[in-house]
């Protein structure tokens, strides 16, 4: 109901606004489908000249797909985009960039060993001059930087700048390219409060130069502070576009949730056994603090939290990929000393990494080698891997997990994301661990494969394995876990019994709201 009221009010205000500010981007009924998912569905969106427009939504709400359609990285299946009332070509990133729609993503695309001046002018050197004139470059850079109220020396090396300065340099570079629209994705990630202030003043300066900004962030306080209007997405659909003065943080959270729990997530009833893993006052400086919890046999424990809340860092320490500064870990009531991943594996802890391509798979090796890598010692007789035995084991796992592959001798790079994820999971099933930690196990895979993975986790729990699942998809956690720990800025904010909580409560907690 709140939404409706706000929207009505908003529509009226929009009319008022239109007289003052021109619409620079008008996206009409944009849709984009991926196999099994409607990533963006019939989205209408408009951006005014000289406006800072917040874009929020949970992971998977369709924010990045929408942005990719705006910048031309994706071609929409339906709908069109108008730029200053003219329909533009879709799915052509160079064309869009030429119009002045520039996206600055989390990783900065600058050259760290070049100077500030060189970075600003690179790619746009004077074609008539063979020898570059660094004096002129630096002078131009200085004028630009000063006009943005940004005082750094154009001759200093970018690698000597702070992270905030680097990010601002990139924004400055965009503005020197006659940007009309700048898209920022989590621009304040890993910045200190004082740096955020400076960044915001830069954004306001751009705004006064009639540049429009789309501001994507999970940090709702900041969104409310810097933006003029906010669009909330959920499941690929626009929930509402609201004026920032009309809403509170709580309203925004409420709009972001609302997804109903699907019945397809199978919840198994498994008897919880004795304590298997126990963590006491675990700390790793600058990442997480004072984490204590227990895990029981047959239990599925969820860890929720936004990106940067310390959840992945915690998992890495449990697995020995990094070392804690303080605290203790007990497995089967015995204190363990985990210094490297091989120690953790010996003790019986497995870890399915978040980024399967970068941290999990051996892309140039076949399905067989990828699956059996953890059990080669068991398969080795007289120094040789028993290939026939390996084949039987891997084929069994392929059948059990319904991995779709022509045979086990093809390179794993040719498999779909869901099947690749199953290969990594199969690896840990083969090893028979006591505790399995999974970091975003269903990220980027289709619904069918997701359900299969949930079922598998249920079966593993039945066998008495303790499972920790880290996820930013709250419906997933609510469906398959027994308990959920919510992390916020490096510590456990609260523990929930899954059946006593709901998505809204979890989301509020993850955003650090104290009203609960």
């Amino acid at each position, binding site marked *: 109901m709140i939404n409706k009221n706000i929207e009505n009010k908003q529509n009226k205000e929009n009319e008022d606004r239109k007289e003052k500010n021109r619409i620079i981007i008008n996206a009409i009924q944009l849709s984009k489908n991926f196999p099994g998912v409607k990533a963006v569905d019939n989205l209408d969106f408009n951006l005014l000249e000289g406006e800072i427009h917040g874009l929020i939504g949970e992971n998977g709400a369709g924010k990045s797909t929408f942005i990719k359609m705006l910048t031309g990285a994706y071609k929409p299946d339906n709908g069109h985009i108008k730029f200053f009332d003219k329909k533009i070509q879709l799915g052509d990133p160079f064309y869009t960039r030429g119009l002045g729609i520039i996206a600055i993503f989390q990783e900065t695309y600058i050259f760290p060993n070049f100077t500030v001046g060189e970075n600003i002018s690179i790619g746009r050197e004077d074609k008539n001059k063979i020898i570059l004139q660094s004096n002129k470059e630096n002078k131009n850079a200085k004028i630009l930087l000063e006009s943005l109220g940004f005082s750094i020396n154009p001759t200093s090396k970018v690698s000597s700048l702070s992270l905030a300065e680097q990010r601002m340099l990139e924004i400055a570079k965009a503005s020197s390219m006659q940007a009309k629209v700048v898209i920022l994705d989590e621009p304040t990630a890993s910045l200190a409060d004082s740096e955020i202030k400076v960044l915001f003043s830069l954004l306001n300066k751009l705004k006064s130069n009639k540049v429009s900004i789309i501001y994507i962030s999970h940090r709702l306080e900041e969104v409310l502070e810097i933006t003029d209007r906010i669009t909330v997405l959920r499941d690929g659909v626009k929930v509402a576009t609201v004026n920032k003065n009309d809403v509170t943080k709580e309203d925004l959270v409420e709009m972001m949730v609302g997804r109903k729990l699907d019945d397809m997530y199978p919840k198994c009833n498994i008897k919880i056994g004795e304590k298997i893993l126990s963590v006491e006052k675990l700390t790793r400086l600058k990442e997480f603090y004072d984490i204590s919890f227990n895990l029981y046999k047959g239990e599925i424990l969820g860890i929720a939290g936004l990106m940067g809340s310390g959840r992945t860092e915690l998992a890495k320490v449990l697995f020995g990929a990094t070392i804690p500064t303080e605290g203790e870990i007990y497995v089967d009531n015995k204190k363990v000393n985990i210094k490297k991943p091989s120690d953790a594996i010996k003790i019986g802890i497995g*870890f399915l990494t978040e980024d399967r391509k970068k*941290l999990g798979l051996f892309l*140039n*090796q076949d399905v067989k080698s990828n699956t059996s890598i953890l059990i080669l010692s068991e398969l080795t007789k007289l120094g*040789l*891997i028993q290939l026939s035995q390996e084949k039987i084991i891997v084929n069994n796992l392929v059948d059990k997990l319904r991995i779709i592959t022509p045979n086990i001798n093809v390179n794993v790079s040719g498999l779909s994301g869901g099947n690749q994820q199953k290969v990594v999971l199969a690896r840990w099933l083969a090893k028979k661990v006591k505790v399995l930690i999974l970091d975003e196990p269903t990220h980027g895979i289709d619904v069918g494969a997701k359900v299969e993975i949930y079922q598998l986790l249920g079966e593993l729990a039945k066998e008495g394995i303790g499972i920790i699942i880290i996820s930013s998809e709250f419906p997933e956690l609510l469906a398959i876990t027994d308990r959920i720990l919510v992390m916020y800025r490096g510590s456990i904010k609260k523990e929930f019994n899954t059946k006593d909580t709901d998505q809204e409560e979890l989301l509020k907690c993850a955003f650090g709201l104290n009203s609960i």
Partner: protein
Amino acid sequence: MLTKILNYLFLKIKKNGLLFALIALMIITGILNPRFATASNFINILRQSAINVLLAAGTVFVISHGEIDLSIGSVLALAGVIAAGMAVKYSTLFGIFLALVYGITVGFFNGCIVNYILLPSFMVTLATMTIMRGFSYVYTQGVAITGLPQSFVYLGNGKIGPIPVIIIFALVIIIFLDILLRQTKFGRYTRAIGDNREAARLTGIQVKKHSILVFILNGLLASIAGILLTSRIISGHPGVGSGYELNAIAAVVIGGGSLKGGVGSVYGATLGAFFMTTLSNALNLLNVSSFWQMIIVGLVIIIAISTERFRK
């Protein structure tokens, strides 16, 4: 029917391009110069390839685990003069023993610096390459060591029946290494590390220790090659083996290995090294001047690697 046969042949050729190129080279050279196609010339080629094949087989381990080792040519030379010097002074066995210990030590040294001081293997082994070359000149004062005992000379020149001992040595080692890379934990881990080092670490592979073992293996093989070469030319010469590391790298890549790591086979590297030796033998028999030979060999390397790329 005919198209079927042609199709089948084409597929086979596509899959085993290097092998067919080698066969084609042999047939063409055999037609142009009948002296090429004699048993004695074949044995000659095999004997000449022995050294290069060993170096290529060691290098394929280093490359498929994602690093590079430029020092092997110099390691070969120093191992050779150490073996020769000690064989003359004490005994053949002691000479061989010390040369092998030396090879292992250099590998250990390279591996430790690359993995614990975290320097790029290209630079580290480039430096050891010069250092080892320097040592072999210091040790010999620039003069070749001669007067090797008969037992030492036998290794590189003896025969069992019609077959030179050196060929048997190389063959046994190659078969061992092929199995090592294909069908053992060590081999799988080697390729896994080259494919994705961080993923390898996160699957519990002790990446640094493993990498040092790979460098040790390569140092050991270089020292074996050094002993065999010294025995074959019946003198310990400090200048031998320069540029052999590049031949070995070329052989690995021609044989389907990837400089990015993760991909490579001992079979391919062996075939690659054998192909290059055969090529230079053929060019010799066809009276191509050694200056032109360099140019031709370089071009062939480029062609071989490019066709490999197109195949994918």
